[in-house]
């Protein structure tokens, strides 16, 4: 499903003096339907790695293969299409549109391209997903009327609307309280199991890491397997 081969990422050092390596030769393979959590201290490059996997960022060197195709070879437009069709994102900040209802927020990814599936079908799926995340009775609410956990659930539903094969979650519980974090973690695990979505989560929350399959640790730009919890 996803394979990273010798991926590196460097940034220019402040003042222009040389470069700083964030990812140093990351090689990783995640099979379809599997789940993985990437842990590591703050600033170690977890988000960068996730962004590279999701096509939001490009590696300095190395290859990122999604279903065998190298993302590094794709144009920005192609990457956008791939993200829209194959990848779902959940961010620490939910980035919901305050001007739209819960249902509309979930439907936002379906507007990325002209045409596509029928509105009836996508509406039904959005409602299903919102029911799945426990928000069936909040369809016409605005983000401002929801709690933090509810908002994040909407974001999860939004990530799944286009039936992605890969769900990337970057600190999805980072700004939530413990109870809410737990419920989100359960939701992600369930989705992984029930819907066969490949799940990669970047987090430094131990409890969340403990609920998800394989644990990889990123430290010093190098990824190492910590096995299963």
């Amino acid at each position, binding site marked *: 499903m996803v394979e990273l081969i010798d991926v590196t990422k460097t940034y220019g050092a402040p003042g222009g003096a040389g470069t700083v390596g964030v990812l140093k030769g990351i090689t990783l393979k995640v099979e379809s339907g599997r789940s993985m959590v990437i842990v590591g201290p703050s600033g170690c490059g977890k988000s960068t790695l996730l962004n590279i996997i999701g096509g*939001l960022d490009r590696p300095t060197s190395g290859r990122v293969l999604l279903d065998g195709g190298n993302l590094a070879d794709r144009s920005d437009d192609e990457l956008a299409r791939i993200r829209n069709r194959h990848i779902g994102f959940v961010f620490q900040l939910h*980035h919901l549109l305050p001007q739209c209802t819960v249902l509309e927020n979930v439907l936002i990814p379906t507007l990325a391209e002209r045409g596509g599936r029928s509105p009836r079908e996508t509406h039904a799926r959005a409602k299903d997903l919102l029911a799945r995340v426990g928000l069936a009775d909040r369809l016409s609410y605005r983000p401002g009327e929801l709690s933090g956990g509810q908002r994040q659930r909407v974001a999860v539903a939004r990530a799944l609307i286009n039936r992605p094969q890969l769900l990337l979650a970057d600190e999805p519980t980072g700004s939530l309280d413990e109870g809410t974090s737990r419920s989100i973690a359960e939701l992600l695990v369930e989705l992984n199991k029930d819907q066969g979505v490949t799940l990669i989560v970047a987090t430094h929350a131990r409890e969340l890491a403990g609920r998800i399959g394989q644990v990889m640790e990123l430290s010093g730009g190098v990824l190492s397997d910590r096995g299963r919890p």
Partner: protein
Amino acid sequence: MSLGRLVARSLRFYWRTNLAVLLAVVVATGVLTGALAVGDSVRYTLGRTLEARLGKVQFASLPQGRFFRTALAGDLEKQLGGTVAPVLQVSGIVTNDDGSRRINRVQVLGVTDRFYAVGPGGRPLGKDPTEGIILSEAVARRLGVGVGDEIVLRVEKPGLMPREVPLASDKDRTVAARLKVQAIADDAAFGRFDLQANQIAALNVFVPLSWLGERIEQPGRANMLVVAHLKTSFSTREMAAALQKAWRLADAGLELEHLPKQNVLELRSRRVFIDEPLAAEALRAGGGSAGVLTYFVNEVRLGDKATPYSMVAALDGANLADDEIAVNQWLADDLGAKVGDAVDLAYFVIGPERKLREDQGRFKIARVVPLDDPVCDRTLMPAFPGLADVNNCRDWKPGIPVDLDKIRPEDEEYWNEHRGTPKAFISLAAGQARWRNQYGSLTAVRYPWREGLDRQIEQHLLSTIDPATVGLFLQPIRDRGLQASRGGTDFGSLFLGLSMFLIAAAVILTGLLFVFGVENRRSQAGMLMAVGWPARRVRRLLLAEGGLVALFGTVLGVGAGLLYTRLMVYGLATWWSGAIGGTDVHFDARGLTLLLGGLGGLLAALLAIWLTLRRQATCPARPLLAGDAAASLGDIVKAEGPGNGLPRRRLRPGRFGIGIAVAAFVGVAAVLLIAPARGGEALAGAFFGAGALLLIGTLALTGAVLQIVAGSWDRPMTSLQGLGLRSAGRRSGRSLAIAGLLACGVFMVVAVGANRRDPTKETHGRDSGTGGFALYGDASIPILSELGTAPGRDRLGLTEQGLESIRAVQFRVREGDDASCLNLNRAQQPRLMGVRAEALKERGAFKFTATVRQGREEGWGLLQTDLGAGVIPAVGDYPTVFWGLGKNIGDELEYTDEMGRPFRVRIVGMLASSVLQGSLVIAEDEFLARFPSVDGYRVFLIDVPAEKADAATQTLTADLRDYGLLLTPTGERLAAFGSVENTYLSIFMVLGGLGLVLGSMGLGLVVLRNMLERRGELAMLRAVGFGRGRLRRMVFYEHWGLLLAGLACGVISAMVAVMPALQSPGAQVPYLSLATMVGGIALSGAVWVWLAGTLALQGRLLDALRHE
């Protein structure tokens, strides 16, 4: 959910931001549309005025100092079809019943009902318009009279021949009558009739043509034809051909008479002298023709014996040598002369500038003829007015000084018995050599009589003489009027040009407000891109939102534009009426103008939105999502560095801005070098071109400096000011926008302020706009004498004490379009004034700012330059030449003289703004050569000691009231012209003020926004120990730097851009008030910054705003 719905939701959710953008678009579109519609309104007004003053008139023959049969109108009508109306137009003075109100320079029009048929209403007034007097509304208003009131009308009484011709009587110059006002003529009743292109209502009074003809002793005659209702279009040439077929000899003032006793057919002129071209043709018209020139001589002297005041005839075929004379027996007896004696003739001739000069000639008596010889023919004396029509020679009133005491009883006896029978005869050549003048060299042509000869001669003359030579030619008045109204001051462009910066300010504000909205939603954009929206689709979404706001704003803006136009029109009618001479501007807005204004506003708004979006939405999704909503694109670019898929900087920071600045400065230099060589609109173009380029250049430079400061991370800043500067550089685009807004407003205010002038200052010097003269005089009836000389004053009966010290420079006037700044039309043929150039030259009057021969001190002497046949030199003042005519030194204007011959007037010199505004000045002799029928002087520049000016004004006004002499202090006249310019400037200052309001608003907005975005940064600074006051100061330094940059850009651009105007004559830059104004702007800006900073630093307010 659809894209449209998402857009709708967003529009509603972010309504505050959208409302702000919408208002900015409304302002931009409103000002743009309004400016264009002001142009429509003025054009419409000029068009309406054209209809009101010309009615249906298409062609007209203008008064040329000659009179023709009123029946010519009917004869011409037969040739042309349509309607031809005869008009008798003279100048007049009108006073109300008790004499408390008086109007000089009234146009008195003798009309028939045909005249009203060619008017705009196509109908006469309710009552019979051929009885009583009808006043135009303008006259009635100024006199304060209504229907049924009595008024006193004094009209000019033109002579049969020009009043200044020797022997033309200058008595009975005017005639007065008390009349009852029968009606007030509004526009529909042709009350504004005027053949001159001017939007200011003419002062007209209408009387029956027959009545006026009787009163001024021109019965059955007219001096103007107006042609209307032509079925087909006629060219000027076709009109001339029709006139050629219709005219009769009487229309040229000629008459043929069979004198049975002499057995000759005589051709003579009502004007005494037969015009040269007519005389030449008349001599060719029949076999045996003989020219006659009979002249009035002051004295025939032989030794100590003299005979006063006699007629002497110069005859063709007199069989006399040029130095020989034949005397009649009576004269021979009176002088005791015999054949072989030499007699001296003394006579007046016209010297330069039509001054009478007594000349003498010596002749040897070749023979003495008895009184019963056929040659002693009393019909040889032409009908000299004041001579031919009196019984007693003591009643003579010739137009020359006659000492009646010299007339002896025997002279009276001769007159009683023989009347004007010539007492002596010389050869025609000798007579013409002495007495030829510009009005002719023959007083009659005689042909040996035979039956049918009169018809033959008449036919020959009518077919061979061009009626134009006697002033009969039809001019395409309507076409010329249209040309004048279309070519006139384009208020649309004027308002648009000077609103441009206001519009730009509104557009910048649109972009600024829009980008704030977009920046608020950066993470949204990032999320959309993260979920697979291509960047351009995100852009389209935001563009669609912005576009809808812009579209709605445009629609509202067009409505606002109409209100703006109404406000401007109201302003022009009230506060700024001085700018257009009190003309009523009527509101008008064309559909196309509204469409263009709306489209312009929409495009400008869309462009601003697109440019800001393009910049914002080129940022990739990940940084947008990074959560730092406050981070600017610049921050991200710097943080990410190269190789990260972001737009790469190819140039070092600031290089691009410096490049633009250099290019702009080169452009400015080029424009300013070229501009002074051109005039009028080219200069105005230079103003805007140079201004715009400089603004671009200085702002680009400011942007470059900001970028350089922002990029110089290796140099740590060590002060609060440095921190402020660094902060300003962080958002260089936004900072630049705000500096640009302020620069626009300041540019406007300074540029306009620099054009202001105070014409009333320095009015005493010879090189000032008054020419050093104390009074400007304008007479309704031409004055023939010189006001500045004792004999001249004596002739006018001015004998009061206190007038000895006055000196005057007098101008002959050929009426034409007013080319002053009071006329909104483009003057086609401005008024010409003839002056004796030496009179001005020896006084060094007025200041020449440009001449055809730069650097050579020739001044008024240029009027005597020989420019070749058909071209005469002229001088005008700067506002007349540049603005009134749109001309420059060396340019020419086409004119037609009173004989229909075209000639060109070349502008050889330009004066600083002066009391001569509105006219072109030419040399008097050139004037007389072109307009010999124009009598006397109508404009006077009078030198009188300041302490005697009031007394002189009172005396002259009272004593010359029959001439309608209006005396104005020159300073007052200059101030009146100056107030026009200054009123324009006031209008534009208002627009500049609006620009500044927008600029200040923008500044306040940017301060607030910046502070809100950097709340975290400010909180951190507070945490590390910054006091609230210190933070406020930091904010102040940052934004005050922007304010200063804006002010500097605006001031520098304006000062350089108005350089051509500064070099123009009379420019008096009020540096102190400008400095005060700019200081005021700086202060108000500082207050805005302080206020906005203080507000922004208040926590609760901050929170509230952040969520919007």
